[in-house]
């Protein structure tokens, strides 16, 4: 009988430490499947961030460098520049990427580093016990916003997929969710698209995956999943925000700067 479902080889055969109802495990699996399908596992170097995602090396069967909080895109830059033949991805949460690591993500993206960033947005700091994140919804109660996030004091949740799509170095930016089978299948497709950009050496690709944190949200896994499909997708719409393969430059690109040992940048990077 043919086997129709199996563990991706890029994923280790171990149980995860994630809480019941957390979607990190699902997102890990999609990333691992994409790695298998492109056959890049043997040249992959993952960059782990700080938070629940720190145990990346415990689940992915790939080489991993652990980065300080928020610095994964800078570490990935160093890895990729030193070893351009490797496949490099970071896996970061919302506190890591959208708060302490904003400088690193924006500039790695703007330089068009040939890496893929998987950004898991669960609107909270899960590992540290459910504090307010930059993506926490207005009114959402957390352990550091006990009266609910106040727009006047705390600002509004940051939409990273849209923000990064503005930058010249970004080749691909999309937001996905894994709350329904349909969304999950689409998430896999977009992760494949993001990986394809790097495999073809075409620049920076970004996936924002909405995810649950039933423990920090103080709800059941089912309620958490419903929150994704309701409030969260309404504020963080799913979709592709930039796909340069589909993109026609508005202005003619300027001539590339001549310099020794120049990298071949994809053409779209010349557009401002």
């Amino acid at each position, binding site marked *: 009988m043919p086997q129709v479902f199996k563990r991706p080889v890029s994923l280790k055969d171990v149980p995860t430490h994630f809480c019941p109802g957390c979607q990190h495990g699902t997102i890990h699996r999609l990333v691992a499947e994409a790695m298998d399908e492109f056959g890049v596992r043997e040249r992959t170097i993952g960059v782990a961030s700080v938070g629940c995602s720190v145990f990346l090396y415990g689940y992915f069967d790939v080489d991993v*460098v652990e980065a300080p909080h928020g610095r994964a895109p800078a570490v990935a830059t*160093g890895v990729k520049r030193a070893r351009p033949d490797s496949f490099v991805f970071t896996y970061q949460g919302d506190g890591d990427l959208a708060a302490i690591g904003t400088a690193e993500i924006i*500039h790695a993206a703007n330089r068009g580093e040939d890496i893929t960033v998987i950004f898991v947005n669960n609107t909270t700091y899960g590992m540290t016990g459910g504090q307010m994140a930059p993506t926490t919804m207005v009114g959402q109660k957390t352990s550091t916003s006990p009266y609910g996030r106040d727009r006047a004091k705390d600002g509004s949740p940051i939409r990273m997929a849209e923000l990064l799509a503005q930058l010249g170095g970004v080749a691909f930016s999309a937001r996905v969710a894994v709350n329904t089978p349909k969304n999950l299948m689409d998430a896999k497709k977009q992760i494949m698209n993001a990986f394809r950009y790097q495999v073809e050496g075409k620049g920076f690709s970004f996936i924002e995956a909405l995810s649950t944190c039933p423990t920090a949200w103080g709800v059941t896994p089912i309620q958490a999943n419903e929150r994704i499909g309701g409030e969260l997708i309404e504020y963080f719409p799913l979709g592709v925000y930039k796909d340069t393969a589909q993109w026609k430059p508005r202005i003619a690109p300027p001539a590339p700067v001549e310099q020794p040992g120049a990298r071949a940048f994809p053409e779209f990077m010349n557009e401002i």
Partner: protein
Amino acid sequence: MSQRLFVKGNEAVAMAAIEAGCRYYFGYPITPQSDIPEYLSRELPKLNGEFIQAESEVGAINMLLGASATGVRAMTSSSSPGISLKQEGISYMAGSELPGVIVNISRSGPGLGGIDASQADYWQSVKGGGHGGYHIVVLAPASVQEMYDLTMLAFDLADIYRTPVMVLADSVVGQMKEALVPNPRPVTILPEKAWRVRGRREGTEQMIVKSLFLGDGELEAHNWKLHGKYDVMKENECRQELFMADDAQLVIAAFGSVARIAKTAILMARDAGMKVGLLRPITLFPFPTKAFQEVTLRCKKILDIELNNGQMVDDVRLSVARDAEVYFYGRPPGAGSLPVPEELFEQIKKHY
């Protein structure tokens, strides 16, 4: 006959890095070290290397961390306020046992301070700097030639001990021009970088570069391992210069640029018939404790001179023989505070 050049201290650092095989540099502009990134931004692309002007010092040190994790030789440079920003990454590199060279052409502080020569980063450099109780190797050049030679040594020590290594100088040494013999890279037997990440191919182990150790007893064992390395460094890597110290009745302890000024004052004292010498630590960590013990077996007066309010003097006091006297003379760094030889000669006369 080898070539003899007339170059700036900062340029000597950059030249040495290239000669040492460093092809990856990550930095951010700050006075008085910007000659280093300027030189490397011009030269590295010609060698198929990578130069990145990072978004910040934090970005630069983490790019160094990433590049170093793949096994290549890489470097960053900055000056005091920027080095403060790098301390997070330096702690992670020390914890992850990653080699890497960090150059600090230090300037005066605290805060924005000024751009003048300073030795006020001694504590920050040799006592860890970041969190967690670690050390890095710290080398203190006093000439353009040493800027070159010690930068090359820094890369070797980093690889041998799997540790970040700092070259600690100031604008006097960084900005002055002197004769330089650009020696070729010494032949050193280096350990294979079996720990580097390269992609987990069939039949190879998964490589993980990390500083997180949560298992029962793991972190304690890791720290004992790190501190075991520091003990080996203390045994094998101490370097110092002794100048006219054999018969000295008073020995000056000074490092870097201030040791240069002290040498002139020592010659003035010798002309006046006073037996004065110099013990100049070249490695600030590991500190040349044995050299101080040996010198103070015979000479019972040490005059420690620094361009700060007294930092290295702590280590001098911990190193000398029990019956030796340690005097201190220092000036906090800032415009106009660099001592002149006559001033140091007065101090010699006071304590001789």
